[in-house]
Structure formats: C-alpha cells, structure tokens
C-alpha cells in the first residue's frame, strides 16, 4: 500500500477513501441522478463515489461548488483559488491544496505566492492584495471564525469591491465544507 502524502505539493495526487465507495452497478436511481451518469461520463472518481452515499447532498453541492468557484463576473479566478487555499491550509487538506495551488498557479501564471505559503503557511509574506485575501480567508476559516472588520477594510483598501468580497467569503466558506469531506473521508497518495 502506498504511503499517504502529508506534505504540501502541486503534484497530481490520487485519493484513497477510508470508507467503501458506492459501486456504480449497485447505485440507486437517486445515486445515479446525483452522479450525473451519462454515456459520456463513465469514469467517476472514488471521492465522488464515496459522496454518493448521501445523494441528496451531492446533488446540490456539486453545482453550488461550481457556481462559487467558476462564476463569470466578480472576483477573479485567482482570488477565489487563494480563498480556497487559505481555508485548506487552516484545515490541512493536502489534496485540496494540491489541486487549488495548481489552479492558482495556472490562473495567475505565477508560482511565488504558492511557494511562500507552502514554506510559511499562515505566516506567509505576500504582495499586498494577495496578503489581504489570504489573511481574510485563513481567519474566516479558523475555529471559531476570526476575520474582523479590519480584515474587510484591508480588502477594500486593496481594491476589492463589495461583490468581490462576497465572492471571497463564498469561496472560503465552500472550502470549509470541501476540506471537511476530503480531508476526513480519505487521504492523498501519489498518483499512478
């Protein structure tokens, strides 16, 4: 059995579940609907097959996640990914971080922000705008949530509009959800 990955990486990882995934051939109609099974979509990940144990939640969370992370207007994609990374660092979801650090680097065509966060976690020193976004998302992700009026004022000072701030709140919050699934129902392993 491959050892689990516990360090930060942007490598593509696999995910090994701690509970038995739903078997596609045994899926109920409700599970098949939530899994969006179509002839073109036969390859479904173990992660999604684990979540299919609760098809009602899966049915609504998948489009919710996509609407929050890939909305057309408002906060840019990199800003949303940085919100996701802030939450994932607080909750130490190594798999989530790998995926969204990769997305952040692709969206921004940079690697320095992710490298600094990997090295220093919540003590990372970032360019002003990125610092304000990362600090807000990591504080909002704390238990209990600890973002303050000053953190919101800093976002405004760095040029985030109220709508963009709302988008950051949403991307941070949805990762409070995603981290609690991915990090607790299984673990990352090297791909292949």
């Amino acid at each position: 059995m491959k050892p689990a990955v516990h360090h930060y990486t942007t490598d593509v990882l696999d995910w090994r579940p701690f509970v038995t995934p739903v078997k596609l051939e045994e899926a109920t109609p409700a599970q098949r609907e939530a899994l969006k099974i179509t002839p073109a979509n036969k390859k479904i990940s173990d992660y999604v097959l684990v979540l299919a144990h609760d098809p009602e939640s899966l049915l609504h969370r998948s489009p919710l996640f996509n609407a929050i992370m890939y909305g057309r207007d408002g906060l840019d994609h990199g800003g949303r990914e940085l919100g996701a990374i802030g939450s994932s660092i607080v909750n130490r979801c190594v798999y989530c971080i790998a995926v969204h650090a990769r997305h952040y680097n692709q969206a921004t065509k940079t690697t320095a922000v992710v490298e600094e966060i990997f090295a220093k976690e919540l003590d990372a020193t970032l360019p002003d705008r990125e610092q304000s976004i990362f600090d807000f998302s990591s504080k909002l992700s704390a238990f209990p949530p600890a973002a303050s009026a000053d953190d919101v004022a800093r976002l405004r000072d760095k040029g985030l509009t109220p709508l963009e701030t709302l988008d950051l709140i949403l991307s941070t919050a949805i990762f409070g959800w995603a981290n609690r699934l991915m990090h607790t129902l299984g673990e990352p392993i090297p791909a292949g």
Partner: protein
Amino acid sequence: MTMDLIASLAGLAADSPVRALLARREDIMDLTEKSRQAVLTPADPGGLSHTVRALIAVRAAERLGDPVLRDHYFDQFSHGEGAYDLADLVDPARRPDDPWLGAVFDHADRLTRQPRTARQSDIETLQRAGVSDADIVRLAELAAFLGYQARLISGLRLMEAAQ
C-alpha cells in the same frame, strides 16, 4: 426568496446593500438553501434522524459561540420527534451514554472544531461503534455544511457592519 434565511441569520437590515449583492448571487443562495434541506431534513435521513441532525447543529452552533445560529437550530430541534429524550444533549459538553450516538457526536465535534486533526482511526472508531459507511458520509456532509454556513454568515455580518 430562498436567501431570506441566510440574510436573517446574518442580521442584514431590510434595506441593506448586502442583500442586493446576495440577489446577484441568487443561484448560489438557492443551492445553499437546497443543500441545507439536504443535510438537515433529507427525504432519506438514513440512521441520522432529523431531530438528531438538528441537535448536532445546536451543539456545533454552541461550540462556534453563535447564539443566533444556536437559537435557530434549537427551535428546529425542539419541534423534532423525540427531542424531549435528547434535551440534555443540547449542551455540547454532555456526551450520550449510547455508544453509537456518542461516536457520532464525538466525530461531529471534531469536524466542527479541528478537522485538521482527523485521521483514518477516527473513521475506524465510528465503524467499530456500528456507524455505517453511508451514515459516516451523511454525518460529514452535515458537519461540513454547518462549517460552510457559519462562515458565510460570519462574513456577511462583517460586510453588513462595514456599510
């Protein structure tokens, strides 16, 4: 309007500009409400009754120190079937005698407070207590939704205060 619950929990004024922003994210608010129903009052609750789900939400809100959220879920819990027999457990410091429910509450508490510490052994503890894999996933979705909702509300309150 499905965003009314979130706006109310966040304490947004009737004429708050934050409400206008939420209206621009109506699809997200609509899916948030459908998700709430899916984890709190699902058609197929499995081993986690609607009353137990509301009770887990009360305990999480208490841990989060959020009296508005706590009162909202307490109201839902107290109207639930069998709530009377579980009423002592609204205090998150109390642990049920029943091993199945005890394991479920311990895990819910971990997911609320320190999900970063979760290990495979926590899932094995649940399995040994007789909690099915499907109920483990249902519990994770519930606790995780509560984490989402609490942070959405917390963020909206900050925006409202900044107006």
